[in-house]
């Protein structure tokens, strides 16, 4: 059987973290009462006009720079038309002709064969990043044959990040999205929490034989977590292969991932190809961005966005942070991945290192094995840990000074998890876990044992 080459591309919508929406002043807030965050513009009242939110543009520029994109100094807004209950104006304002950022790349890492010790770095090209409006939400109430529309989300700013089909499987896609998520959270341009709909991923999947042209692709939607992303993609790849090997064809269709059944199914709503009748948005002039060179002297700097200024103030990206952790503390690269993967863990680690004499290379084991596994077992975040960095450092100091054995240390840690407020030293004393250092005392104990067994 000829081998199959799966091809995976991604369209990611990240909700911009901002106080107000992309083109209107209404607030952005998760889970507010229905239709309580809707301005006249969001409701598409006739006569209302869009006004661009500066913060949203800055978020897109930051993200573009972090993804090594070229920032277009002039970008344009367009209208994309279709009728749907959650799209009050009958069109979405987006950037179809010239988006704000293009031609970037994202590097991400994978473990080979599930071995953390063997990591490989891959790159996916970023085709573009465009600013666009989010739609509202519609809830279908089939029993009463009605649709309930909530416009709170209508008009919230989105960055659509398009990743070229450079990935080959669910694992790669998941790793790429995970890295993107970390970058967005580091920048603060999006909180990127998938469960809250702040990060939505659609996958484009196709398969072909090596040397042949790409196959027909399907679009997979309705993926609610990174884990499901990998599952959905791998399922779809398998489905396509089986379909083609049994003589069938792949339809260029949109499919939804059913997380309960673990498979993709055709989506009822999408019939045929839509012509969106793109048209320039006449109420928004072209978006002009400046850099240090092109910035006019007498320009009011409140009125303009300076790309270089933003570049200078970008925080350390995850890849840089990891490198620094490895260099500074001598830990392994895969350790740095785990540290950054868990919100607050890297800070916890560094805090412990500061407060203990134990070498970071040893501390890391306690963090990644003992602390992290406990947290995972009890579904706790680092913030919720009953053992603070202070307490853990305290314990590690006892171990380092050889006042207790490592077995005893684990026992103490188990006790500390209970969060009863006792210090490590108190627990050691309570449970008599001290290591005996006194030679004479040790001899006496041994002698007593031997004496106890004289008769044997």
């Amino acid at each position, binding site marked *: 059987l000829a081998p199959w080459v799966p091809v995976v591309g991604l369209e990611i919508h990240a909700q911009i973290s901002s106080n107000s929406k992309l083109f209107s002043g209404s607030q952005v807030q998760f889970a507010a009462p229905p239709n309580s965050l809707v301005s006249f513009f969001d*409701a598409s009242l006739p*006569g209302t006009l869009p*006004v661009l939110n500066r913060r949203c543009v800055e978020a897109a520029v930051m993200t573009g720079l972090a993804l090594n994109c070229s920032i277009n100094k002039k970008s344009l807004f367009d209208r994309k038309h279709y009728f749907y209950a959650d799209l009050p104006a*009958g069109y979405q304002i987006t950037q179809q002709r010239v988006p704000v950022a293009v031609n970037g790349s994202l590097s991400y890492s994978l473990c080979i064969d599930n071995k953390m010790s063997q990591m490989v770095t891959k790159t996916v090209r970023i085709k573009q990043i465009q600013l666009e409006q989010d739609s509202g939400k519609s809830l279908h109430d089939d029993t009463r044959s009605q*649709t309930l529309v909530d416009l709170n989300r209508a008009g919230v700013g989105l960055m659509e990040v398009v990743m070229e089909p450079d990935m080959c499987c669910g694992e790669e896609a998941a790793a790429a999205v995970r890295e993107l998520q970390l970058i967005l959270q580091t920048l603060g341009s999006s909180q990127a929490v998938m469960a809250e709909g702040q990060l939505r991923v659609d996958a484009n999947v196709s398969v072909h034989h090596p040397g042949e042209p790409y196959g027909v692709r399907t679009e997979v939607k309705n993926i609610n977590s990174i884990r499901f992303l990998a599952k959905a993609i791998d399922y779809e790849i398998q489905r396509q292969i089986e379909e083609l090997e049994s003589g069938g064809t792949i339809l260029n269709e949109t499919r939804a991932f059913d997380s309960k059944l673990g498979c993709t199914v055709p989506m009822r709503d999408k019939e045929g190809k839509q012509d969106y*009748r793109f048209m320039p948005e006449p109420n928004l002039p072209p978006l002009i961005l400046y850099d240090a060179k092109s910035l006019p002297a007498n320009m009011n700097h409140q009125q303009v966005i300076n790309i270089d200024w933003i570049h200078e103030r970008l925080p350390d990206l995850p890849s840089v942070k990891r490198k620094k952790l490895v260099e500074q503390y001598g830990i392994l690269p895969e350790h740095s991945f785990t540290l950054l993967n868990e919100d607050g863990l890297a800070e916890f680690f560094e805090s412990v290192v500061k407060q203990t004499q134990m070498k970071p290379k040893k501390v890391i084991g306690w963090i990644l094995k003992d602390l992290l596994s406990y947290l995972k077992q009890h579904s706790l975040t680092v913030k919720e840990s009953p053992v603070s960095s202070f307490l853990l450092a305290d314990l590690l100091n006892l171990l380092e000074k050889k006042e207790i054995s490592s077995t005893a240390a684990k026992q103490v840690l188990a006790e500390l998890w209970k969060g009863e407020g006792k210090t490590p030293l108190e627990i050691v004393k309570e449970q008599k876990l001290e290591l005996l250092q006194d030679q004479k005392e040790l001899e006496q104990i041994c002698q007593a044992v031997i004496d106890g067994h004289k008769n044997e």
Partner: protein
Amino acid sequence: AMLRASLRQVSAALKEGRVTPTELCQRCLALIKSTKFLNAYITVAEETALKQAEESEERYKRGQPLGILDGIPIAVKDNFSTAGIETTCASNMLKGYISPYNATVVQKLLDQGAVLLGKTNLDEFAMGSGSTDGVFGPVRNPWSYSKQYKEKSVPKSHSEDEESNWVITGGSSGGSAAAVSSFTCFAALGSDTGGSTRNPAAHCGVVGLKPTYGLISRHGLIPLVNSMDVPGILTRCVDDAAVLLGSLAGHDPKDSTTIQDGFKPFELPNLTDVSKLSVGIPKEYHAPGLSSEILALWSKAADLFKNAGAKVVEVSLPHTPYSIVCYHVLCAAEVASNMARFDGLEYGHRSDMKDSTESMYAATRREGFNDVVRGRILSGNYFLLKQNYEKYFVKAQKVRRLIANDFVKVFRSGVDILLTPTTLSDAAPYTEFIQEDNRTRSAQDDILTQAANMAGLPAINVPTALSERGLPVGLQFIGRSFQEKQLLTVAKWFEKQVQFPVIQLEEVKRHDADVFQHQKSASFS
């Protein structure tokens, strides 16, 4: 004589206490009632207007009027959003729609103490050149009932009366033009996308100003073509238009297409010497169908400038013949887009059809829109289809650039201002006008006004003379971008030269005759 005074004159009278805001408001409301047959108003906001007048009166009593517009009755075209007052766009789609906010221009007027009498009639969604295609019926040109027209009109048979002889106002801001023309208000807001302020101004014998695109905020103006729409100003004289312009122009953060630079209101100088002026006569504006009457008047006007010492030159705007077709493509495309929001869900008319969302949309839009609107939506969507976009929309945008460049070239060659006719003929009788469909009429009537919208330039209609039928004919001046001061200065000079006659309306005479004895306004004759 108070009702027939200019805005500046009546403002002075208010200041001097010769008339009070409530008296003025009541007179206007009474005149609106007795001229109801004109059908100029869709909504008369009697209660709120009187309240505004009372508040104005309080301010005058305290000696603290807000400015020249305080207490002045004005009317607003029914496609501007007015909080608490119905905004219908003369369409079933928005019957009963009450906006929760004021358009910026409305807010500005109210903030300066103006008294909002009501919303005026128009073609549905401002699509038309007759003000005949709205759901509330056509607007009648007040000149139909003027002594001047009646004297000249020859009834076709004995049984014919003025009922069937009345002429249209032009459009689409016909209600506003009629309101100003019949003295029920001292100024009115219209809108101008292809000539919709200047056209009815010409037919109704009033001043109609189309400002430069981007000078006055469109926030709250229900759009026809976002890239061409401007709020229009209709007044009795050019000085009044300058006053309105001064109170409305300037950057609006709510409208991203308004200019950033500060705008300084100006007083119009009394130009006496035109020898430094260069007036261009674009030869392409001698359009097919231009009546010999208007051609003669245009020529006479050119001579007027020449004899006064101005330089008058023939110029060419070679792409003028293409502007109508180009306009129709761009207008239809934007209409298709702008009307997409009318789906019956959030506001406005919603059909009873419940079979599915799609069928509800379709029924709502069929019930809510007239043929004209639906026709433009269908053609607009056609032009925007992926396979047609380059051929129609992009092509039209390119032609638009050429049209705008024509003007740039001419203004760069030393010409200060262009003089053209505003309309092809005087106002047609209604029965004759409706013989042709809306699209045909628009194509004919927009031809002289529409290029200024394509290029975003300021233009003004100045009433010039009466036609043989006793109806108003106006001429148009087109100026450089943002050079309204120069445009209006020249227009004012011209207005003074031609001394356009006052309309002789029976109803107005009756209302105005009831004048306070101590009012001997020597300044007005």
